[in-house]
């Protein structure tokens, strides 16, 4: 009897939190399973007087990346291996900041331009199928945004508020879902500076025609 009375307000409070957009924050914290955010279905967890809101889908890595080898299988597909297949045999070198020097037989062509970080600042030397935070806490690859947020707090804050990273879909989430990118969709974690781009489209204005480049 007592338990029932206590539980109802908690459920309502939790539902309220979900409805006012804390869904996004929980995603970054990785507190909920990813499938919840991929399902573009109506959330039923809202307080009665509010229109249900569609969820925000964030593109996150499925798991640890696979490393491409020089072998191909019988169908001609490149053979990939997990990080741990090599790294379980090596001791971590916490001083390493580059992939250019031997004996890095893999990671060829990896450019590293991300401050003074070393590989194991983010990669977890105790389990290369995971990442780690600055305090040593193990996190999964799909929680990568939590790793970024440790140093890039203003960007993480703006992202949570919907002001960073862009989106597609619906501005009005009572009418449809939103899709958002994760940090590493736009910023290569090994060289996070946003790349230079070439403009591919120029309107041709009549008053500019005589001086347009190429005329």
């Amino acid at each position: 009897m007592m338990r029932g009375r206590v539980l109802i307000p908690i459920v309502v409070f939790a539902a309220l939190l979900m409805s006012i957009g804390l869904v996004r924050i929980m995603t970054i914290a990785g507190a909920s399973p990813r499938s919840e955010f991929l399902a573009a279905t109506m959330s039923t967890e809202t307080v009665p007087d509010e229109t249900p809101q569609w969820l925000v889908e964030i593109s996150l890595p499925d798991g640890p990346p696979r490393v491409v080898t020089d072998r191909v299988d019988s169908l001609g597909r490149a053979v990939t291996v997990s990080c741990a297949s090599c790294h379980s045999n090596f001791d971590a070198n916490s001083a390493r900041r580059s992939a250019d020097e031997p004996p890095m037989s893999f990671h060829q062509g990896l450019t590293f331009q991300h401050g003074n970080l070393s590989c194991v600042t983010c990669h977890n030397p105790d389990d290369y199928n995971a990442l780690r935070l600055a305090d040593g806490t193990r996190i999964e690859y799909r929680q990568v945004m939590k790793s970024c947020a440790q140093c890039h707090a203003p960007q993480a804050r703006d992202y949570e508020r919907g002001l960073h990273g862009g989106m597609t879909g619906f501005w009005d989430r009572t009418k449809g879902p939103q899709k958002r990118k994760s940090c590493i969709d736009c910023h290569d974690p090994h060289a996070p500076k946003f790349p230079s781009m070439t403009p591919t489209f120029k309107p041709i204005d009549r008053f500019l025609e005589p001086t347009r480049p190429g005329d």
Partner: protein
Amino acid sequence: MSDSDKRTISLPVLGEVSRRTALKAGGATLGLAAFAAAVSPLAGLRGRLSAQELMQRHYKELSADDKARIFERLENEAKERYGADVKIKDPKAIPGVRYGYAINLSVCNGNGACMEACHRENNHDRSTNQSYIRVFEMPIGTTDFKHGDSTYTHDVPREGKYYLPVQCFQCENPPCVDVCPVEATWQEDDGIVVVDYNWCIGCRYCQAACPYHARRFNWKEPQIPAEEVNPDQGYLSNRIRPAGVVEKCHFCLHRTREGRQPACLEACPTGARIFGNLLDPESEIRTVLRTKRVFVLKEELGARPTLFYFFD
């Protein structure tokens, strides 16, 4: 000069008539020719300008039946002239919504994807790459357009520059609406300034009145390959416009009034664009206004734009 000489300089085809008569006849012929030339654009319209279109009333006076007929006619025209199956709709402003747009100049890198998205979404003329957006490359330290350049083709961003995308600001106090002599342009309840392309007479007063160069004159009938025509069209937004009318950004109202984001926002690879409801305190656009350093262009003119710029 003798009489016989006079005769020889008469127009030979007219034979034995006086010079005065000849000039009269010639003048009449030229007058006819001039008149024919003057009305020739009308002759070109024959078969295109239907009686129904000629007699079409102002958008605000149209009944639901009128609209259904007009939209069907326009859809048929699109099929006939462009070979495209289009659907013209007329979504209404959502009650309790006033749109606002914000652009983050700290991350905009001038790549111009927004201009291209606008070009495709809004059925612009392919030959001129028309678009409702222009991105200006500006030297850091000024917002004066005279220092800006919209024709750059080099890689971006460039040191010492910032990039300023400009489109219609959907001003709260729009000077373009005030000057229209036929009320072909007006502001809707959600703040979007629209044009009835079938009511516009093409006088271009609005274009002159806009302090932001946001309006465009449609110099010619747009050329668009059938497969590139966007079939999702609004009467007051992205339907294919006739030549000789003024057009402008409408915040993609055929999308945004259904709750979707504008095309330029979805296309932006840098995430610089933020759109939403100014009347919703929890919206992203309101968060920008509350937490960022926001400005509008030419604030002193008092047009009160609802497209804002900010820096992180």
